[in-house]
């Protein structure tokens, strides 16, 4: 039980990633696939942040005197995730616009009926 308690952030974020991948692989509605992509994105961001966590650490901001670098979490994964979130929004918007176009062209969002997207 203590293993789960200690690694709850890892377990949760990997769980999110796996749920997202499952949705992308199995679901046949294009909107659901895009929602799965968003799950994947969130899970990866959460995983990166939790890799950079240091126990009992605070945010890496020297906003008041007396804070020492030893009690702060790793700033590098946070900076990476900051950019990854924006990219995630852009990718999501582009995917949704492609879904809009596909719906106009085929009249459906079912991947089985769209030629060229079947697997």
């Amino acid at each position, binding site marked *: 039980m203590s293993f789960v308690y*200690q*690694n709850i*952030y*890892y377990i949760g974020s*990997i769980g999110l*990633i*796996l749920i997202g*991948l*499952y949705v992308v*692989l*199995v679901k046949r509605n294009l909107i659901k696939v895009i929602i799965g992509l968003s799950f994947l994105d969130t899970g990866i961001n959460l995983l990166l942040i*939790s*890799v*950079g*966590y*240091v*126990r009992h650490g605070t*945010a*890496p*901001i*020297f*906003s008041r005197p007396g804070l020492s*670098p030893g009690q*702060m*979490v*790793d*700033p*590098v994964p*946070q*900076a990476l995730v*900051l*950019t990854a*979130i*924006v*990219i995630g*929004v*852009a*990718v999501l*918007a*582009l995917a*949704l*616009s*492609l879904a*809009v*176009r596909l719906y106009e062209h085929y009249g459906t969002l079912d991947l089985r009926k769209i030629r060229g997207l079947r697997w």
Partner: protein
Amino acid sequence: MRKFLALISLAFIAWGVALSLSKAPFGEDKIVVGKHYLEKGTEETGAANIVTSVVVIYRGFDTLGEVTVLFIAALGLGAVLYTRRRSSERIEPSSLVLRTGCRFLFPLILLFGAYIFIHGHLTPGGGFQGGAIVASGFLLIYLGCPERRTQELRLGATESLGGLAFVVLGLVGLAVGGYFLTNFLPKGTFNSLISAGVIPLIYVAIGFKVGSELAGIMGNLMERTK
């Protein structure tokens, strides 16, 4: 069958990720790069927020590439959704309460976004977050007052100016200090608004660029749903 194959591949992926994460236990100490940034970051860049100095100074070139990715995504969305505007469509004007609420809240939201991206080197926040807040103000206009269109030409101009300011600041750093995005301005007093050299300037540029870009993306998506 499909579900079975998916579950098997998921099990493999979970196994691989768990194997690699067992080398990086949760809550352990930082890597060398992060330690260096935390110990030397405030002297080298003058910013109180280390994440900001990593994003803008240490990995500034990466941020420029990332802003470019956002720009290309917005461009692709515009190209995919492009149609001739049907101006004959009548838009139902919204009610008085909604219109007044929008008009009242919109400048406040813009002000809050500007506050977030100007204080990027002092508080949790910065250009990307502030830009997202500014874009949420535009979303309010799109949803609440559909008869008031934002002008896409002006959004595009703001976006280009933001990107241009970023590149020009980087090139001035190249001319003055010898490498791209040098922090060529004086660092000022630590933990005050005018400090950290070029970081606030770059974050203001990024804030304008991200805000107008996201507003443009939302505008394109809203036009199509009419």
